[in-house]
């Protein structure tokens, strides 16, 4: 990272980031949010901004394997990192199993919060979750205003139960 005068709002910093397998080398303002970098510089508008203060979860992306709120990180903080966004979930144009389950269970209405939920779910291993309360704790970092969460829980439970114990199901929806 090339160090410059960071006291000025116009300070520029060179960064290199890999997003969904594509490498971006850009000179960006030091104060540029990661969410704005992803949306405006990389042009990936599937990452949505709902609050810009790290509560609603709509802007969640995966940074080096962990879910992170892109509105609460600066682009310069992810210099050298590998990022995945919602655009990276589908395979060969087909929906991934969680996307498919959201579709089949009517787990989205307006769809604005959906990419954030999907990225948080993508970042974890269902084996690490003991029961529905664990799942609630994971997803309680995301606000949805349309669904009352009913069908989101149902969709996740359907995928996770199948993944862990095809004939049982510890995740009651």
């Amino acid at each position, binding site marked *: 990272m090339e160090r410059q005068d960071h006291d000025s709002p116009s300070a520029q910093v060179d960064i290199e980031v890999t997003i969904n397998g594509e490498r971006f080398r850009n000179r960006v303002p030091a104060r540029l949010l990661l969410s704005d970098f992803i*949306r405006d510089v990389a042009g990936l508008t599937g990452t*949505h901004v709902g609050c810009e203060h790290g509560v*609603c979860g*709509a802007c969640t992306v995966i940074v080096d394997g962990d879910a992170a709120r892109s509105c609460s990180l600066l682009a310069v903080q992810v210099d050298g990192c590998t990022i995945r966004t919602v655009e990276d979930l589908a395979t060969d144009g087909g929906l991934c199993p969680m996307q498919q389950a959201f579709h089949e269970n009517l787990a989205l209405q307006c769809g604005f919060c959906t990419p954030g939920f999907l990225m948080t779910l993508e970042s974890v291993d269902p084996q690490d979750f003991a029961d529905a309360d664990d799942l609630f704790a994971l997803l309680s970092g*995301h606000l*949805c*205003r349309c669904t009352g969460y009913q*069908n989101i829980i149902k969709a996740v439970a359907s995928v996770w139960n199948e993944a862990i114990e095809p004939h049982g199901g510890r995740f009651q929806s």
Partner: protein
Amino acid sequence: MAVEEIPQISPIIRHRTSHLGRAVPRREDRSALLGQSQYVADIRLPGMVEVAFVRSGEPHALIRSIDTSPAEQIEGVVKVVTAHDLDGVEQFPHFIEYNQPVDQFPLARDRVRYVGSPYAAVVAMDRYVAEDAVNLVAAATDFEPLPTVTTIDQALAEDAPLLYEGWPDNRLTTALIENPAVDRAFEEADHTFSETYTSQRQTGLPIETRGVVAALREGQLTVWTSNQSPHIARTTIALVLGVPEPEVRVIAPAMGGGFGPKCHVYPEEIVVPWLAMTLNRPVRWVEDRAEHLVSSVHARDQRHDVEIAYDDDGTIRGIRVHSIGNVGSGEIFMPGTAPTFVTGGSISGAYELPNIEIQTTCVVTNKTPSGAYRGFGIPEAALVRERIIDRVALLTGVDRVELRRRLVLREDQLPFRMPAGGIVDSGSHARSFERGLEMAEPLLTDARERYADDPDVRVGIGYANYVEPTAPTYHLTTGFWAGYDSATLRVDGDGKARVSLGLAAIGQGAETTAASVVAEALSLQPSDVTVVMGDTERSPYGLGAWGSRGAIVMSGSILMAADRLLEKARRIAAHMLEAGDEDIVQDVVLRDGFFFVEEDPDQRVGWPEVATAAWARTVDLPEGMEPGLESSGYYDPSDLEHTADEAGRLNAAATWANGTHIAIVSVRLSTGEIKIEDYVVVHDCGRMLHPGLVEGQVHGGVAQGIAGSLYEHLQYDSDTARPQFASFLEYLVPTCAEIPKLTLDHFESYAPHMPLGVKGAGEGGTIGGPAAITGAVSDALAEFGVFVTATPITPVTIRAALRPTGSGEAS
């Protein structure tokens, strides 16, 4: 087709493909799941610049001066404008005669009346620079603070500071419907009782904030805006900017939720287009959440002073309600007065409560303007009504359920004229209540068993029975528009249909439903139907998505258009089948996409042949027939009234859905923690076009009802009128950890006068929450003499009510 007739599936369609009532996959999902949907904030145009608004930090002040020069000197700032720069811009129209005129200008001119009021705008090369400049403009603004008004009592005080010079007081509107029968009831009743019920300030809070992009394109002003009523936005923008309406195009792209706040036309929807015209370059503004909380309309800030006349046997002889809405500064188009009137009109709900006198007052204060939020005054009415019933039960010792059984509407009473004029044409009011009780009983038993060994926990149950006015008049709300909507339907040469609707999609699955209705009406598959919504250039004029009207007005207008289109298609088909003989036209039927005569099903023509004749091979048309295969329907619900009679009554909705909500809660005495153990909903919206989508509406609505009962509160400091919230850390939106698994059942009482028998379903879920939950908490704490009269109910209010010195009223 005569308008009096109810649009239904044409009888010439013999075989129903039955796309209605089935789980047709949502066509909206794929792009949303892949991150490809385009919301306003996703729009990027070449040369686009960004706008940020300068908003008042003062609740009430005169603007002495604004020095924009420091901001203009920042590199990257393109322009700074104040109200005095907006050449050619008019005030928002004043359409509602019974309201005092607010004279709202898109930017505050000389006076600000709430924290968040926009009074200047900065255009810059990017949003960061624009916000830097906003801070400089704010710092260089000289305000002269004025005394503030925050609460209803402050607004109505004799010596209250006035928000508007020229008004006699702070009443934006006031109305009293006198009823002599009520006076008699109060004279004759055994007892009377007075109480005040309060609903707190909340907001619809779509997760996508508002946003506007504007650009001049080939001489036309194109405005992308997250608005639930693009045609109304277009008319208003044209009016206020003084631009010919045909030169304005409004596009509502993918919308991240509406919930009411996006029904209004806001200052930014005027200023951003004005900037695009003035600068002749594309301009974008995206609201941030902190702005949203003070600049998008609030709602539900109401107080109800109630008097009840009742007899010893629990008979409620009469009710007087004075509903007072605190509508903030009032500077919003359309005004925020209508929900308080709707509250008054909805007090009786699903019950026979004939003697009600309703007084309505809306006061202005130095808070954010209030307006629409899903439920639109009806949840507040339910709270008042069910609290009254529980109070009378408590006073007389009559069982709460028994008292409701006496009052709830029975099928033999329908159609039932409500005291405020609504005509409840059909429904399952008593049946829904009984079904709800049946569903709740084992859940209550389980909840009590769960806590049987915990002396710190009490369990309670609460009830609400409501009617939901759906596809209502917009005339009382806007003073201008009324109640219709529209569809234009075309079958192209390949036999595929395209429908364009006046409605806007706000995320509820309207496109999926529209495709199913078109498919049903034309004997096609939903995948054969392209749906266009939310673009004034591509769809006919309509009033938009609000008031639980989509299913009704969309179905009605699609079916009217389909009927007209089928009449022509059938004549073309008859001509093709009989080589020119049109005599058989009345015998032609349509099944599985083919036209034929019942006696000779082997000889048939399909939509592609018929439509190709209409558009391209016009030599195949009957002689003299006009080419083309396109028609429109403008459906205006026939029973819907737009103005009140002399007694102040009107049937303000096309039809009335109904439902029962029952909440089972636990309350932890030591902490005041409230948990919703179970929540039962029995819902009846007539015929369900898509049960999964209806359930989705109920789920989301109930979550908002719970939110308003226990969590969400836009608090102001009552001494200074300053907001005590700036983020989701203060405004508590429930997560999946707070919303329990809901227990649902449905009835389908077809609406006798509506297309396909449908009623609306968009708002019912929100209605019962505050009523059922206040009832349940009161029941849980009955042994301590607690009777909840206000929302939100929080651990703080619970602990206060349980203190030995407490009054017993949790408020």
